[in-house]
């Protein structure tokens, strides 16, 4: 796939507050890219820089190989679905959708057909003459989509478009978005703080925090192989524990030695301090004494599909988070086992000083 958008070394501050720090990111044609992170991580600012609503302090934005950093938003071949939809309240649904086409001077007949087509695409046939204020949140969301895609942009920017909807509607709209993207065959850049949304819809997830990209990759990569403790913690429940490499392919956590699949070949030397992620669903329950380590179940919670348990490690204070389909009673003593491939070893996050030293070398 060809590269469509490239952010090159973008920095942006508001006063003393540095929002983006030398961010570099490429988006390929026809990709569904999600910028994921907690509020204040710089994801919305990144989107606004792509849309042209903010100017970066430093760095360039390229679209299809052309530098568009200084192009105003109305000259950019992309459209945005805004967080609170930003529908024009004094116009009807039809007038809202037609706005972009009217501005570009299309004929009345063309506009009429296009509006009709766009409404059909978002499943709101015949809504042309409704008032914006008569629409529900979900309908407004669809109209905002229709208003953007009717202009046939090459890229659609979506700023937390599902944030204001309830859970059921949000899940429905996730399917809708994926369907729309397939039908239109255009690039989506999607901003959210919801990891589930990011994982279900995206081709590529970009996890951001503090103005840095923490990790980018497919949803599977992000979930199964988080590169640092932040990503592991942000994407789903996890046991994130400091540990130490004992030897190649053997890591010690909380006094227990776990065989793993990482070692010197991917940069983990014996004796090195590391962070280890073990997903709660990857800890298997065995009879007492038959696992790698033992513990006592201290609490149990049924959360729909499975049980979530806290297990206090034998001879220690640490509590492990477990998820299991089978019910186990609180107070029972169990053995626990983790497959080597389910142990994800990560480098300790570097301090800012270390980062600087690395740069100088």
């Amino acid at each position, binding site marked *: 796939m060809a590269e469509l958008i490239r952010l090159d070394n973008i920095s942006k501050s508001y006063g003393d507050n540095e929002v983006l720090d030398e961010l570099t990111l490429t988006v390929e044609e026809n990709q569904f890219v999600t910028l994921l992170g907690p509020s204040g991580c710089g994801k919305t600012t990144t989107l606004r820089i792509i*849309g*042209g*609503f903010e100017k970066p302090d430093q760095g360039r934005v390229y679209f299809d190989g052309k530098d568009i950093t200084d192009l*105003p*938003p*109305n000259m950019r071949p992309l*459209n*945005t679905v*805004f967080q*609170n939809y*930003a*529908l*024009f*309240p*004094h116009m009807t649904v039809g007038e809202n959708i037609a*706005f*972009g086409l009217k*501005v*570009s001077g299309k004929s009345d007949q063309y506009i009429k057909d296009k509006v009709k087509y766009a409404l059909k695409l978002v499943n709101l046939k015949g809504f042309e003459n409704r008032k914006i*204020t008569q629409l529900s949140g979900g309908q407004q969301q669809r109209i905002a989509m229709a*208003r*953007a895609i009717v*202009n046939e942009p090459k890229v659609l920017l979506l700023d937390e478009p599902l944030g204001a909807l309830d859970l059921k509607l949000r899940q429905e709209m996730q399917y809708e978005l994926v369907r729309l993207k397939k039908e239109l065959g255009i690039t989506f850049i999607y901003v959210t703080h919801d990891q589930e949304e990011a994982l279900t819809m995206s081709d590529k997830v970009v996890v951001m925090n503090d103005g840095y990209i923490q990790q980018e990759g497919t949803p599977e990569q992000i979930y199964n192989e988080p590169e640092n403790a932040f990503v592991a913690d942000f994407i789903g429940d996890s046991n994130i524990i400091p540990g130490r490499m004992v030897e190649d392919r053997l890591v010690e956590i909380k006094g227990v030695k776990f065989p793993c699949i990482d070692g010197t070949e991917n940069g983990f030397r014996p004796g090195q301090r590391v962070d280890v992620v073990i997903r709660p669903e990857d800890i298997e329950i065995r009879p007492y004494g038959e696992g790698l380590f033992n513990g006592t179940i201290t609490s149990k919670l049924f959360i729909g599909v499975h049980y979530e348990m806290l297990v206090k490690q034998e001879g220690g204070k640490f509590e492990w988070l477990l998820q299991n389909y089978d019910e186990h009673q609180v107070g029972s003593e169990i053995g626990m086992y983790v497959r080597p491939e389910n142990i994800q070893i990560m480098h300790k996050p570097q301090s800012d000083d270390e980062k600087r030293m690395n740069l100088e070398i």
Partner: protein
Amino acid sequence: MKKTISTLYIALVMLFLYLPIAALIVLSFNESKSMANFSGFSLQWYEELFRSRMLMQAVGNTFSIAIISSVAATVIGTLAVLGLSNMKKKSQDIILAANNIPMLNADIVTGLSLMLCFIMLRLPLGYGTILFAHITFSIPYVVLSVRPRLNRNTDRLFEAALDLGASRGYAFRKIVLPELKPGILSGFLLAFTMSVDDFIITYFNKGEGINTISTIIYSQVKVGIRPSLFALSTIIFVVAFAALIVVNRNSDRNEVAFNL
């Protein structure tokens, strides 16, 4: 029982508020010149009002000043709000505080200081100075009623219009201005009624030989009020009442828009 008392109470309050005005309206249709007895219905005072050149000139001055000053204040005030929105938060707060002070200031102080200012600048007091004074004291009201309409929401709508390919000017005219319209309209009506209503500031800045309705009523108090002034006051009341209804209906609609 409770309901009767509360109805009675409201009736009493309404009576206190509107009885004086009702008395004025009734007496304006009185046959005789008496201020105490209603002897019969007649329109003679209205006739006298419309025949009196002096009174009609005052009416003309009042309304021409009100219209010109409120239009000017609306334009200036709206532009001020637009300019403010691009300033830093701190400067905005300072200017808005400065904007609020003239509204709290006693009219007599505003009137006196404007007069001193005109004299210092050697501007002859007259129609022009009244107009200038009215524009000055109306602007803060326009700013106050337009500003709440220009908020994060309008910023977003503006951005959305740009995003859809509109130029800044087009986006402003087609999207932002309609959003500001209710605020602009109530600002205008507020400025208009303030201008019609004003006596003190006008009195200090009018000079010789020119009168508005309020100043002419005041000057006649000394020689004895004729019932034609009741007729005039009745007309003003009706006009103000109508304007009030329009403003209220307008702000009701705004509230609906806010709630959504």
